[in-house]
Each structure stands twice: as structure tokens, then as C-alpha cells.
């Protein structure tokens, strides 16, 4: 591919020539980057209930169904959700805890199963990496309990389980939690939708049409009750851009 090599050189030479007065060396770039103005909001408002309530509100605005439960109630809550969906066959990522796979339903565990099998399943149950309350976003990094990208795409119904500790209020707080940059990530903010015909919002084009979320409190008290007694400490801000 010698032609490409020359094109590479041509393009880079043009860029170098055009930016010779402003481009910096590696140290200068790092210094300039650290000085970029970042006066936008990074941190949550205090109190876990603020982001908890905001997340529920945002998800409901997207027509997602949201239920809350304590860790002890989780298996029963999952069963109730699966039953209420009227569906029977579900895909589970390989790392989904066994107690989340309610009995009485048909489970396909994704050990690299065929697309056609995933396509035939009626739903999928996964964990998540993070939830961002400000925009009602579910973040998947596709680890073993979140599954490959395809399993949360083809089935029409997605049940996602999100723990209170995984919830942040702002998008910068999520990025602060990415100590290891994910090689794959999907941010889901409401079900698949389009407004391409006369700006009328239609739910469900190609992705799942139904998004259900179970929010699990930290301990066996609801986040809202707990917040009333004591202020829940905000997860430590890690890997902040500030000071870099």
C-alpha cells in the first residue's frame, strides 16, 4: 500500500506546515491541555436521593419502566419484572449472577451464541457499569455481567439492573470513574427512537423498544429513607482531570 504511505506523508506534511506556528511538542501540549478552561459542573449535588430521584424521573421521561428495591428484594423483583413482561425466553450475559436468572424462564447464556439465537430471544437481562442521572443514561462497558454489544441490541426488551453505588449525577463524574478507558462502551439514553418524519418522536426503530430498569439501594434500606437520617457520602472523585 505504497500509495497510502505517500498519502499519509502528504496529509501529515500539509498539517505540519499549516500548524507550524501553533503546534507544540509533547511537553508543551500536555501543559496547554492541563490549562484548558473547565469551569463546568463536575460534582453531584449532595445527597444520594437527589441523583436517585433524578434518575427515576429521567428514565420515566424516556418511557422506561423503573422499579426500586433493596438488595434482598432483587431476585424477587427480577422475577416479577420477567413475569409482568409476558415473555419467556431471555438472553443472559455469561457473568450474570445465577440468582438473577429466575427459575421458570428459558435462559440462553451467551457463550458466543449465534446471532439468530439472540434474535429469537424475547428479552435480555444485564447489569450496567454506571448510571448518569442528569441525562438518564445507562452506561455499559460490556464486561462479563453486561454482555456483548449484540445481546442488548437484538432482543426487543431489556431489563437492566443498576445499583445505587453505580449512580452518578453528572457525565464528568462518570468519566472520573473510567480509571481504565473501556475498549467498548455503549451509553443508552432511552429506548431506540426517531423523529425523522415531521419531528414526531417514534419509539422503537431498530434497538430494543422496551427498557426496564431496576434500581437497587445500597443496603437493605431504601436510599430515600437512609438519606433522611444521614447524608450519604458522595463516592470519592477519582482520576479527576483537575491537577493534571
Amino acid at each position: 500500500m505504497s500509495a497510502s504511505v505517500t498519502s499519509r506523508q502528504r496529509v501529515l506534511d500539509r498539517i505540519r506546515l499549516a500548524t507550524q506556528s501553533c503546534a507544540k511538542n509533547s511537553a508543551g501540549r500536555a501543559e496547554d491541555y492541563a490549562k484548558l478552561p473547565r469551569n463546568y459542573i463536575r460534582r453531584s449535588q449532595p445527597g444520594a436521593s437527589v441523583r436517585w430521584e433524578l434518575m427515576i424521573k429521567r428514565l420515566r421521561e424516556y418511557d422506561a419502566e423503573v422499579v426500586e428495591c433493596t438488595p434482598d428484594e432483587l431476585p424477587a423483583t427480577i422475577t416479577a419484572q420477567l413475569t409482568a413482561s409476558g415473555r419467556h425466553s431471555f438472553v443472559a450475559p455469561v457473568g450474570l449472577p445465577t440468582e438473577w436468572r429466575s427459575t421458570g424462564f428459558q435462559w440462553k447464556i451467551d457463550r458466543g451464541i449465534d446471532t439468530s439465537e439472540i434474535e429469537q430471544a424475547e428479552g435480555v437481562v444485564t447489569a450496567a457499569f454506571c448510571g448518569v442521572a442528569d441525562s438518564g443514561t445507562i452506561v455499559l462497558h460490556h464486561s462479563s455481567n453486561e454482555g456483548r454489544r449484540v445481546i442488548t441490541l437484538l432482543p426487543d426488551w431489556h431489563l437492566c439492573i443498576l445499583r445505587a453505588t453505580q449512580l452518578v449525577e453528572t457525565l464528568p463524574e462518570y468519566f472520573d470513574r473510567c480509571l481504565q478507558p473501556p475498549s467498548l462502551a455503549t451509553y443508552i439514553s432511552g429506548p431506540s427512537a426517531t423523529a425523522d418524519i415531521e419531528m414526531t418522536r417514534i419509539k422503537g426503530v431498530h434497538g430494543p423498544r422496551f427498557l426496564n430498569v431496576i434500581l437497587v439501594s445500597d443496603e437493605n434500606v431504601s436510599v430515600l429513607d437512609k438519606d433522611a437520617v444521614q447524608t450519604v457520602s458522595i463516592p470519592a472523585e477519582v482520576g479527576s482531570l483537575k491537577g493534571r
Partner: protein
Amino acid sequence: MSSTASGHAQLDPRLALPFPEAVLPVLRNPQLRKNVAHAIDVIQTKRAKLVLEKTDWQALRTAASAIRTHALENLGAYLEQFEERCTAAGGVVHWAADADEARKIILDLLRQENASEVIKIKTMTSAEIQLNPYLQAAGVDVFETDLAEIILQLGNEEPSHIVVPALHINRSQVREIFARRMGLKGLSDDPKVLTNAARTYLRQKFLSVSTAISGANFLIAETGAVAVVESEGNGRMCLTLPKTMITVAGIEKVLPRLQDLEVMLQLLARSATGERMSPYTSLWTGVTPGDGPQRFHVVLLDNGRSAMLTKPVERQTLKCIRCAACMNACPVYRQTGGHAYGSVYPGPIGAILTPQLMHMEYSQSLPYASSLCGACYEVCPVKINIPEVLLELRSQVVNQERKQLTRIFDPMYLGLLIANLLFAKAWRFHLAQRLGRVGLKLFTRKDEWIHSLPNLGAKWTQTRDLRGLPDETFHEWWASRAKGAK
């Protein structure tokens, strides 16, 4: 002008009519203007509400502008870093100096894959390089998968907006296109029914076509990742199901670090569609074993971009994240829609981007397709001072015209030449005033107004009257008064 199948002949800046001529059919098409105005009103209302709730909106804009500027100032280093990281993750990076090279690289890749069909995520960059007609001519069937792009492709229509490209087409027109091209009888014009028809039409394609083409919203230098933002899930289908993915991205799309997305993603959807976040944002880095396409290529496209990097004023153009907020806010775009701009990039950003992509050899009328009201600058999430760039490009156009010999036949040039001569010396000016008074007297009626002038002057009097010149100028009156006082 009719278009070829999925081609954008009308939107080729080399063939397009100048803006003032191209706009005439649109201004005579009330249905199209109504469709455009409706769509824009909906987006504008949603955007305004969501921007208002963001108390740190201006701080986000300032940060985004600074990040984009920094990335462009150091573009060479960040692109090389992206290339290195993407390659390390199993991707293959190609460089294309112009549209022709990019098209050839992509066709070669498709031939290596023996691909006779390809599915596509909406990409403005591929429209810019007119990829679809090129691939079709080479025997590759191209299937657009974004709903608006399907409407355009099946209806042989041209995109008129960079985010909602079919906003000029209403539901009954979509119904007609789908009924005709998908062979569906008794289809209603309910958007829900029409959307479902598209879902069914494409499902089999997603599951069977093994090669996909995408654009990129962002390239991350730090990690080698590519980000695509979309609403329907067609993007995720294309990014997940095929065996091979080819991404074509302008060289300006690079961001230094992953965390820069915390700024861009807060601004993009709010500006583009009036949502807090688009339903789906996908990030992938090279190839991930067992998940998604196992062969991944990125084509980095220059095509005139590097020439915009030299001077800070023009460089701003490349900060653009293609949200379309500028066209939604533009009073000119609102009246004309997108087709009159003769480019796949319409509106204020198109007016500055297209002529520069064309090295100022075409689309010279576009920098004038603006009232310079500044609404585009006000809404731009990365603070591109579009009016400033428009003025700079206007001056470049004027400098080009100065070099043309044919300019002596241009009435405006002649007029300004004469004005230049007359204004240079006071006596010439006074003489001209006196001659003008005598000349215009012939056309001045009793009411001291001029109602009609011949030839070029008619351009004024066709639409408004002209006040007749007084018998005496202020200078003359002042001089006679001074004499009288002595």
C-alpha cells in the same frame, strides 16, 4: 434538476447554481417551506428548553471551544497518536488526501471482502465525497439504514439538513415513497406505521450484510477509540453485526482524551436534537475478540481540511461537531431550506465550510447567503464565530474578482469604479452632483419624487420611489449664506 440514484448531483458544489439562483424554486414551493419551518420550530423549542436548564452551558461552550482549538493546533501529533493506538488495538488506519483517494481506498477494501452489498450509518463525510454513487457504479449495492437516509435513498431525494436530512419531506410524501419502493399497498401515513415499515425492510439486511460503513462523531487520540452518536439503533446494528467495519472520518474529528467527551456529549445532543443525550452513543477501539466486526478500517480524510488550518480565523471552521444548531437558528436557512446551498453541508456552517473545502474555487456565493445577524455564533456549542469567517471569505471572494478581466462588464464593479473616481476629489463630486441634478430633473415629477427610472435605475424604482434631488446642496446653501452675511 433530477438526481441520480442516491447521488447528490444537485449538491455537488462544482455543478451547483449560485445561491441567489438556486433559491428561486424553493421560494416558490410553499409545501417545502412549510415542512422546513415546522421541523425547525420543533427542534428550536426543544433545544431552548434544555439549554436553559443547563446552568453551566456557557462554561461548557468555553471548554468545548478550547478543547477543539487545542486539538486542531496540535492536529498532526494527535492524529498520529490516534493512529498508533487504533492500530495497536487491531484497527487499520488509511489516509486519504482527497475525496477520490478515499473512495478508491473504500472500494478496494470492499473488493478485498468480496462485498457486493454494504450497509451504512448516516455519515456526512461519505456524502461529501459522493461515496454512494461511486460504489453503485462499481457494482456495490449500498443500503442506507438511518430512517431519513432511507427516505432520501428510496425517494431519489437530496439531503437538506445535516442532522435531520429529510426534514423537507412530510409524512404523506414518505408514505408515497415507501408504498412505491417497498411495494406496500394500503400503507397509512402514520409516522409509527412508516417507521415500522423501515424496521421490517432493514432487519434482514442487518442480519445478512457482512460489511458496514460509518462516519465518526469523534476520534479519541488517547485510546484510539471511535465514537458514534445516534438515535435509532441502526448505528449499533451496523457496528455490531457485520464482519467488517469501515469508518470514514475527517481529520478534524480528533479529541485529545476520552474525558473530553464529558464536554462534547453534554453539548451535542442538546444542540442537535434538543435531547439531553441521544439514545445511543457507541465507542469502540480497534477490534474486540468475540464482539462485533473482527476487521476494522479507518479512513482519515483531508479533502481540503488541512488548508483551513493555517490561519486562526478559518481554522475555527474545523471546530465544528456537526450539530446543525447554526442552520436551525439561521433566518436565511429557515426560508430556503438546505438544497439552495448546493452542498451536502447547508446553512451557516455550510456557507463557510463548503467554499473552503472547494479551495475557494466554487461556492463563492455562499459567504453572502447570510444577513450576518450572528444567531449562528450565539448557538454554536463550540463557539465558531461564523460571521467573522463569512466576512473573511467575502474578502477573499472580492480579491478573486479583482483579478478577473471580465469584471469590467460587471455593472457593480463599473459603478464602484466611477464612484471611486468621483469621491477622490471634491470638485469631481460637486460636478457630479450638479450633473446628476440636471439629469434626474427629467424624471422628477411635480410631487418632487422620482417614480420610474430607465435601465439599471429601474431596479430601484420598480420596488420603491426615489426622492428627487433638491435645487441646492447644503454646501451651496452654506456658501451663499456666507456671501450674503458679508
